[in-house]
C-alpha cells in the first residue's frame, strides 16, 4: 500500500516534469509513438489478412482429401513432379472399389468453356465433371432444382447444375430449370442452381457449371489429369483414409516398395500450414523493423533523460538532503522515462488501431485488433522506457548529495 502510494507520487513528479518540458517530451516520445503505431498497424493487418485467408481455406473443407498429380505446396523438384503420370478416370474407377474409408468420393474433371443459351454466350466458365457425391465432397448444395443422381451419372445424361453467376448472366429473371444450354456445342438440360458460394481468393466460385463426368468426354478433347476428392465425416479418420488411398494407388500403379509415391494426396491443412510458415517469416521481419524503431526511440529517451539528470542535479541534491534514498531517486527518474515512452505507446496504440481500421477498410477487410496486439504495443513501450531509463536514473541515484546541492 505504502509502495503503491509512493509510486503514485513518482508518477506525479514524472507528469509534472513532462508538463514543464512539453515540446521536448513530445519529440522524445515520437520514436516510440511511430514504432508502436507501426507494430499495431502491421500486426493488425497481418492478423486480419490471416483471418481472411484462413476463412477462405476453410471453404476447401477440412475433412476432404484430394488425390492429384501435383501437391498443392511444391517443395521438391518441379521437373520430377511434372514427369509423374496423370491421375486418370480408370484409376478413379479402381480406387472406388479399393477405398472403403471414404464416406463420399467424386472425380473432378475440369475445363474452362464457353456456355451458350439461345443467343447469349458466357465465356470462361469453369466446367466441372463429377459424380453425384460431389454434393458432399465439393459442398455443392443447390438453392433451386436438384443435383444429378447416381443413375444420371451412370447413364451419362446430359444434365447440368449451374452457378449463380451463370444463371444471372444467361437467364436473368427467367427460370433456368429445364432449359437447355450448350457447353462446347453439347446440349445439357439445366436441373439445378447452386447456392451462392462467393469468392475464393478473388476467384468467382459461382461462375461454374457442373455436369456428370460421364458426359464430360464430349466437351474436352484432350485427356487431362483429374482430381479425386474423398471425404470422411470426422477429421480424425483423415490419416487412415490417406494411408488407404496411398496403399491403393501404389498397388494400382504397381510402385515397388522403397520407391516414392508418384501422386499427391492434398488436404486443407497443407495450405494453412504453408501459409502460416510464410506469414511467420513476415511476422519476424515486422518484429525486427519495429524493434529497430523502438531501440532508436529508446536511445532518444536515454539521451533526454541524461540531459534531464544533469539539468536537475540540484533538484536531486535537495531531494537527497530531505531524505530521498537511492531507490527513491531511481524510481522517480525511471517513472519519468516510462511515462515518456508509455505516452508514446498509448498514442501509438490509439493511432495504430484507427489507422489499421482505415487501411483495412480500404482493401475491404474487417480489422481484427486483438488484445494481444495492444498489450504488445503497451508492453514494448514500457519495456523501452525501463531499459532506456535505468542508466540515467541510476546515475541520478548515485549522485553525491553535497556535490549535487552545490551544482549550479
Amino acid at each position, binding site marked *: 500500500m505504502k509502495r503503491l502510494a*509512493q509510486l503514485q507520487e513518482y508518477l506525479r513528479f514524472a507528469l509534472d516534469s513532462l508538463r514543464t518540458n512539453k515540446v521536448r517530451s513530445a519529440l522524445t516520445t515520437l520514436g516510440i509513438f511511430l514504432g508502436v503505431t507501426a507494430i499495431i498497424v502491421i500486426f493488425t493487418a497481418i492478423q486480419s489478412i490471416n483471418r481472411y485467408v484462413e476463412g477462405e481455406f476453410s471453404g476447401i473443407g477440412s475433412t476432404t482429401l484430394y488425390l492429384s498429380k501435383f501437391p498443392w505446396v511444391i517443395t521438391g523438384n518441379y521437373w520430377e513432379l511434372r514427369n509423374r503420370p496423370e491421375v486418370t478416370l480408370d484409376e478413379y474407377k479402381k480406387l472406388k472399389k479399393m477405398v472403403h474409408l471414404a464416406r463420399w468420393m467424386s472425380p473432378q474433371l475440369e475445363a474452362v468453356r464457353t456456355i451458350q443459351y439461345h443467343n447469349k454466350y458466357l465465356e470462361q466458365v469453369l466446367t466441372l465433371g463429377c459424380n453425384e457425391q460431389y454434393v458432399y465432397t465439393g459442398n455443392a448444395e443447390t438453392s433451386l432444382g436438384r443435383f444429378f443422381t447416381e443413375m444420371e451419372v451412370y447413364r451419362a445424361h446430359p444434365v447440368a447444375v449451374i452457378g449463380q453467376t451463370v444463371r444471372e448472366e444467361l437467364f436473368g429473371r427467367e427460370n433456368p430449370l429445364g432449359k437447355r444450354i450448350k457447353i462446347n456445342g453439347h446440349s445439357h438440360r439445366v436441373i439445378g442452381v447452386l447456392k451462392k458460394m462467393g469468392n475464393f481468393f478473388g476467384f468467382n466460385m459461382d461462375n461454374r457449371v457442373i455436369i456428370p463426368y460421364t458426359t464430360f468426354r464430349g466437351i474436352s478433347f484432350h485427356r487431362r489429369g483429374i482430381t479425386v476428392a474423398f471425404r470422411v465425416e470426422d477429421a480424425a479418420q483423415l490419416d487412415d483414409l490417406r494411408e488407404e488411398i496411398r496403399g491403393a494407388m501404389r498397388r494400382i500403379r504397381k510402385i515397388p516398395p522403397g520407391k516414392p509415391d508418384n501422386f499427391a494426396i492434398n488436404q486443407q491443412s497443407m495450405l494453412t500450414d504453408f501459409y502460416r510458415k510464410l506469414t511467420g517469416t513476415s511476422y519476424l521481419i515486422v518484429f525486427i523493423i519495429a524493434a529497430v524503431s523502438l531501440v532508436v526511440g529508446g536511445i532518444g529517451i536515454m539521451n533526454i533523460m541524461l540531459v534531464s539528470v544533469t539539468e536537475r542535479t540540484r533538484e536531486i541534491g535537495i*531531494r*537527497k538532503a530531505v*531524505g*530521498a*534514498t*537511492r531507490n527513491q531517486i531511481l524510481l522517480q527518474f525511471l517513472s519519468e522515462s516510462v511515462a515518456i515512452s508509455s505516452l508514446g505507446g498509448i498514442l501509438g496504440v490509439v493511432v495504430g488501431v484507427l489507422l489499421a481500421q482505415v487501411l483495412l477498410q480500404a482493401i475491404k477487410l474487417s480489422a481484427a485488433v486483438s488484445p494481444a496486439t495492444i498489450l504488445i504495443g503497451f508492453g514494448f513501450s514500457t519495456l523501452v522506457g525501463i531499459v532506456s531509463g535505468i542508466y540515467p536514473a541510476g546515475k541520478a541515484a548515485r549522485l553525491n548529495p553535497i556535490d549535487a*546541492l552545490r551544482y549550479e
Partner: protein
Amino acid sequence: MNDVIIKTEKLHKVYILGKTRVHALRGIDLQVNRGDYVAIMGPSGSGKSTLMNILGCLDVPTAGRYWLNGKDVSGLSDDELARIRNKEIGFVFQTFNLLPRMSALHNVELPLIYNGTPASRRREIAMEALEQVGLADRAHHKPNELSGGQRQRVAIARALVNHPAMILADEPTGNLDSKTGAEIMNIFDGLNERGNTIILVTHEDFIARHARRIIHLRDGKIESEEIPQQVMEP
C-alpha cells in the same frame, strides 16, 4: 528521549584531491544537548562546511565517531544516512533550495513523501508547518512568486515538518537583506524557545549572537567556545 543530540569524538575528515591530502577536520569533539542553540563560526577553509556536512549526515567522517540522537551514524551507508536525514535533520540553506516547479505546500510535503506519509495526512502536517512560519496564506504559491524571506520561511517549514532532532541552518540569512534576515532569525529564536535544537553556521557575528553557544573553528579544529551576551535586536 535522549538529552544529548550530538556527540562527536575526534572527528577527522581528509579529502584527497589528486595527489594532495586536504585535512579538513582534525579531531572535533563536540556535544550538543536537546534544546541547544549553537552557532558555528569560522573563516573560509576552517572546515565549517565539512563539519556541517558531517553533522547533517550528508557526508561521513574519515575517522572518529558521531552519535546523533544516541545513534552511531559514523559508518552508515548512503541509504541509511538518507533515512537519518529525513527523520532527524531539518536543513535550511543559504540559497533556500526549494524545488521551483512545486508550490510552497508541496515543497514542505517533500520530506513526508520520502517517509511514506499518506497524502491526506501529509497535506495537513505541511499546512501546520507553514502556519508555524506564518505562510499559510501563501501555501499554493510557487517559490518564484515569493520573496526571499518568504522562500526561506518555506524552507524552514520544510525543515520542521518531520519534527527533526535538530535544525541545521547554513548561512540562512546570507541571501537576504538585513531586515528580512532579522525576521528569519526571529523565527529561529522562536523555534528554539519552543524547544527545537538549532545549529547555525554563519560567518556574521551579529547572526551568531542569536545563539546561546558560539563555537569558533580554525584549521579544522575547535579554537574556542563562547557564551554570547544577551542579544541586542539590530
